[in-house]
């Protein structure tokens, strides 16, 4: 429920904040929310990412239609999005038994701190980058960094996925 509420807040923010193609933004967001809700109710882990894609898509559409500079609420949206994803995956875990209170509390604290960390770091990054003029070289470096990030993540994931016995 908390995950849906957070994603709903993201969709509401995109819908209320925009002034062009509001219906399209809302529709994409609502579809994403519905898919997420369906995945949570049915405990379908494969369906869950499509819900996030829908909600993220509505935010992307909202951003692309939005005039002006960088969205100042982007760090909060990113934090909400990440926390919602964590809570969603937690709720569809196939555990029919209760965890220890300490385990639950520590996990909640971890998710909350990850969300707060995302918001703070995102805010700092936006603050650092917002006032600068971006040249072609820096843009190329950004693209290269993004590609490199993806490559590193893919490499680490691929290496770690290979089951091993210890």
């Amino acid at each position, binding site marked *: 429920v908390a995950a849906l509420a957070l994603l709903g807040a993201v969709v509401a923010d995109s819908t209320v904040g925009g002034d062009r193609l509001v219906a399209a933004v809302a529709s994409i967001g609502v579809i994403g929310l519905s898919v997420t809700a369906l995945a949570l109710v049915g405990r379908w*882990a*494969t369906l*869950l*990412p499509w819900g*996030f*894609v829908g909600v*993220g898509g509505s*935010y*992307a559409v909202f*951003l*692309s239609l939005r005039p002006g500079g*960088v*969205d100042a609420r*982007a*760090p909060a*949206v*990113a*934090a909400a*999005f*990440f926390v919602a*994803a*964590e809570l969603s*995956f*937690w709720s569809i*875990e196939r*555990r029919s*038994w*209760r*965890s*220890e209170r*300490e*385990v639950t509390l*520590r*996990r909640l604290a*971890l998710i909350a701190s*990850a969300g707060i960390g*995302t918001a703070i770091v*995102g805010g700092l*990054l*936006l603050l650092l*980058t917002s006032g600068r003029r971006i040249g072609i070289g820096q843009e190329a470096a*950004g*693209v290269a960094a*993004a590609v490199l*990030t*993806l490559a*590193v*993540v*893919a490499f*680490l*994931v691929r*290496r*770690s*996925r290979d*089951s*091993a*016995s*210890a």
Partner: protein
Amino acid sequence: MTRSALPKLGVYAGLAALSLLAALVLRLPELVLLGAPFALVAAISALQVHASRIDVEVELDRERALEGELLDVCIRFGPGDGAERVDVLLELPPGLEVEEGTNPGTLRLVEGEERLLPLRLRCTRWGAFRVGLIHLRTDDHFGLFRHEAVVDRRQPVKVYPTEEAVRTLLRPGETQVFSGNHVARQKGAGIEFADIRQFVAGDRVRHVNWRATARRGELWVNEQHAERNADVVIFLDVFAEARHGGRSTLDPALRAAASLAARYLRQRDQIGFVSFGGMLNWLLPATGQRQLYRIVDAMLDTQIILSYAWRDLVVVPRRTLPPQALVLALTPLLDDRAASALLDLRARGFDLVVIEISPLAYVVPKPGEVEDIAYRLWRLRRDAVRGRFERAGVPVAVWTDDSSLAVAMEEVGAFRRQARTARV
């Protein structure tokens, strides 16, 4: 430990890739922020993934318990690497259930600290079990990688059947040569008065019956009945059982067998045990507490094994069924092979008693005319089998779900008393 990546890892990597690509294509830096936490979490988890060293031991408070009793089990985690979330499942056999504690459970192990997970189990059914197969599953902080292991720390637990109340035991027709609690027909050293006879040299003075001596003018002495033991063989029919839910006719049969063995052994009789069915198991008659444990242990291994092979008494060693033994048969009378073997025993002159464990409580007749006729025919057939025993002079007591073993034993005792009177 076996490592596996959870689907969440793929989703996070995918979301990170999609948002970064979208950020590049749409030239929206906000989308980088959206995908960055997913990429960061996936990368950190992938870098830090390692299998925690977890030492597990299982401690049982005792190795033997009675049906219905509680058994304390403690899963002890030694001081190891520690883990944020550990799912622990103690695999339990069908006869044991968790009464207190959480199984499965999720807990946190702190590095270098010992941790105990106490469980209280209820022994719901007799049997020989092995407890201690533990399934462990650890997840990393964000639940992207999982390590699984099965730790075998199994220890034997024997759950003995509870005793049935028995007020009086059946007196065997014949006694044996060793001293016991049964008043024998033979005369000898004992307490029970048997007869008087003339004094002969060597008779002890304290056996002189002074009243008879005074009346007859010569020495007369008392004679007593000897007190001897008896051979009792418990014959368990394990060809077939009637089962409904978690209960079966084998359960009361085993409880009765254990109770009778304990009671007869207490009065110094020699007890033998024959489990006759698809699986054959026997114990030669013996006396003492060790024999009781042997019998109960043999019973715990008893199970119904479906077999179509014809079996008769040839397969049972001769010494297992000593002559003049009282044979107490516990049978649901569901299989003709058991009935034939018992009638064969009677034909050989054994003192046979049949306690029928009624399967009717375990059989639910199906609705329908044909089914009703089939059910009634089956019951008639059972009556016919019972009649065969009664014609052979074998008492058959029906032990139903709503009565006790004591009632069945009384019924058999009454039959045997009347039968003796009739012979006289």
